[in-house]
């Protein structure tokens, strides 16, 4: 093949894993640079199929495809048009939310939804139908997508609009309906690039739930960091951080920020080293961290100005932070149970705390209305996310037991974070799974779009 051939994207065989660095598999990594190359890659993939991958922030095996192709979509990274009056952007699927913020903030716009990291692509944000701290008011990401172009298994590009079956299957569809090429996204207007944040402490789980229930509606963004190692009366003690974009008049009169209220300066610390010994994050070290984190938080503080990166993406400050778990990697467990099922949430928190799972990144949040995506994760209720070192003995069986609790409460676990769910549990958690499978069988009879996740869970 001549080097200047336009139809074939460059590729190489590489070991691919998710952000949790568990269960790596080998795939041919194809990096299309244009929509035509993407179509050629889809038509040219072998019998083990292909799957689109963005920045690899899904924790489990959603964007890996053992023995097949993985389409690295970060080569399609152009922002096409920005309508600064209406507040919409048209961009390639490989554009990261970080890049969008860099481009949009100076114009007074912000992404409609951001998860705990800016380093996700727009395509990945739709594929996992990600949510953020504003879910209780704004819903998940795909609710702000006005249109998208989807490359399907036949090599055709379809423009999808909300409310159509293929759109709703693609939102949260984990890339299994096709390759998202570009999207039109509705934006959030902001006056400054700072956040006005209220912080308060909750002494235990009941206190936390009471505070969230009572006042969440007053805030655009709301989340609680929860100390899952605290036991007894302190079980579930938390730090609530809630806020909104700071209006211009909230900035102090002579502050430097006044001169450039929309500047975006996330800042960055040195990267985590590539080798970290196993077991650094044990019960004792994490317990100490949690104690300090809880104590250092103010009991009550209002109107603190924070940078966007501090409020939304504290971990993005340390590149490759996922390495701190060592070679064994870690698993993320995120589930949601509906309102009225608080008892199930309490039981799960109690079990985690009694077992002493060393988790320092645990957050609890209230979700708003369910999203239309067939496999979208959010539903009205409580969602708890935690991460645990994967080398903890007996963890697999323990999480299976938590699955049972969650399923019994009609809850579900989040596919973008999953790396270990039992396939039998899935249908009960996602009632539209059969529709999804049927649509896939019709749209993609050869099974071109496949991932390790889809094989593991028979999606």
């Amino acid at each position, binding site marked *: 093949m001549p080097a200047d051939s336009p139809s074939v994207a460059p590729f190489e065989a590489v*070991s691919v894993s998710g952000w949790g660095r568990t269960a790596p598999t080998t*795939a041919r990594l194809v990096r299309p640079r244009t929509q035509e190359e993407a179509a050629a890659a889809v038509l040219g993939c072998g019998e083990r199929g292909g799957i689109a991958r963005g920045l690899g922030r899904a924790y489990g095996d959603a964007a890996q495809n053992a023995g097949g192709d993985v389409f690295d979509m970060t080569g399609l990274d152009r922002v096409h048009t920005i309508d600064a009056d209406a507040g919409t952007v048209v961009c390639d699927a490989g554009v990261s939310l970080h890049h969008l913020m860099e481009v949009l903030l100076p114009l007074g716009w912000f992404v409609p939804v951001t998860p705990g990291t800016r380093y996700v692509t727009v395509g990945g944000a739709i594929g996992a139908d990600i949510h953020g701290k504003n879910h209780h008011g704004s819903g998940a990401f795909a609710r702000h997508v006005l249109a998208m172009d989807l490359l399907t298994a036949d090599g055709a590009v379809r423009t999808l609009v909300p409310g159509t079956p293929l759109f709703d299957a693609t939102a949260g569809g984990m890339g299994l309906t096709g390759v998202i090429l570009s999207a039109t996204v509705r934006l959030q207007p902001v006056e400054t690039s700072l956040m006005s944040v209220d912080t308060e402490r909750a002494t235990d789980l009941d206190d936390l739930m009471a505070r969230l229930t009572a006042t969440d509606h007053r805030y655009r963004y709301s989340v609680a960091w929860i100390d899952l190692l605290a036991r007894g009366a302190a079980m579930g003690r938390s730090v609530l951080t809630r806020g909104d974009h700071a209006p211009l008049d909230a900035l102090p009169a002579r502050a430097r920020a006044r001169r450039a209220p929309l500047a975006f300066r996330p800042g960055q610390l040195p990267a985590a080293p590539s080798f970290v010994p196993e077991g650094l994050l044990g019960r004792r070290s994490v317990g100490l961290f949690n104690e300090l984190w809880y104590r250092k938080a103010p009991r009550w503080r209002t109107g603190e100005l924070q940078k966007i990166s501090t409020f939304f993406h504290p971990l993005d400050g340390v590149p490759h932070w996922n390495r701190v778990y060592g070679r064994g990697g870690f698993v993320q467990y995120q589930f949601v149970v509906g309102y009225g099922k608080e008892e199930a949430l309490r039981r799960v928190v109690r079990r985690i705390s009694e077992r002493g799972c060393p988790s320092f990144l645990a957050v609890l949040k209230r979700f708003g209305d369910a999203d239309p995506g067939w496999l979208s994760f959010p539903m009205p209720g409580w969602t708890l996310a935690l991460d645990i070192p*994967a080398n903890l003995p007996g963890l*697999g069986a323990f999480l299976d037991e938590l699955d049972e609790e969650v399923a019994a409460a009609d809850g579900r676990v989040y596919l973008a974070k999953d790396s270990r769910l039992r396939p039998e549990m899935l249908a009960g958690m996602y009632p539209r799974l059969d529709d999804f499978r049927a649509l896939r069988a019709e749209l993609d009879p050869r099974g071109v779009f496949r991932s390790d996740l889809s094989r*593991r869970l028979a999606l």
Partner: protein
Amino acid sequence: MKDAFGTPQSLLVLGGASEIGLATARRLVVRRTRTVWLAGRPSPALDEAAAGLRDLGADVRTTAFDALDPESHEEGLGKVFAEGDIDMVLLAFGVLGDQARDEDEPLSAVRVAQTNYTGAISSGLVCARALQTQGHGSLVVLSSVAGERARRSNFIYGSSKAGLDAFTQGLGDALHGTGVHVMVVRPGFVRSKMTAGLEEAPMSTTPDAVAAAIETGLRRRSETVWVPGKLRVVMSALRHVPRPLFRRLPI
């Protein structure tokens, strides 16, 4: 696909009636494994093993496999892989032989080597290639401490395991970076029907303990697993004992 803890959903056991093989299969079925292939010489023991795993809820199939017939390996095992991905292959077959008899009957000694060593080479290579095509999977090979240093009391068996061990290590390096994980398991004396009637060696272990060590090794993606773990220290000392002294050791 394996989950985050390395637990496979589908398992192929070569030597389907092997006690360690079955103990491992049982353990994995309880955790995650749904599809189990038991490959072995057709026998009531193989069917019984399959029935036992079915009772635990697994979808179990048996297939004819004879380590002494390497010509059949490619086709026989190829059929298994054609049915779907295999997340883990456990190479569990092997014979102990009878040292005293084998020294008198060279042909029976050769049969030990052909089963444990050359049979494993052909089936191991066939499986390795299939796993490489999949881009994922573990090949777990039951070696033995007996292969670490040949002893007067069982050097025929020991030499066959030494060959198998070296082969597996090399294969693991050859497959490094292909997505296929190769793990050598070196148990000490395992109390099982293979060793029934033999005098028990120090630091002996059980098939269930070996199974547990395999599960841990999968989670850690280990390349070498000793059962029990302290054998690693003991053997690395024994390896350096001078011959005149080693010969006199009561092992």
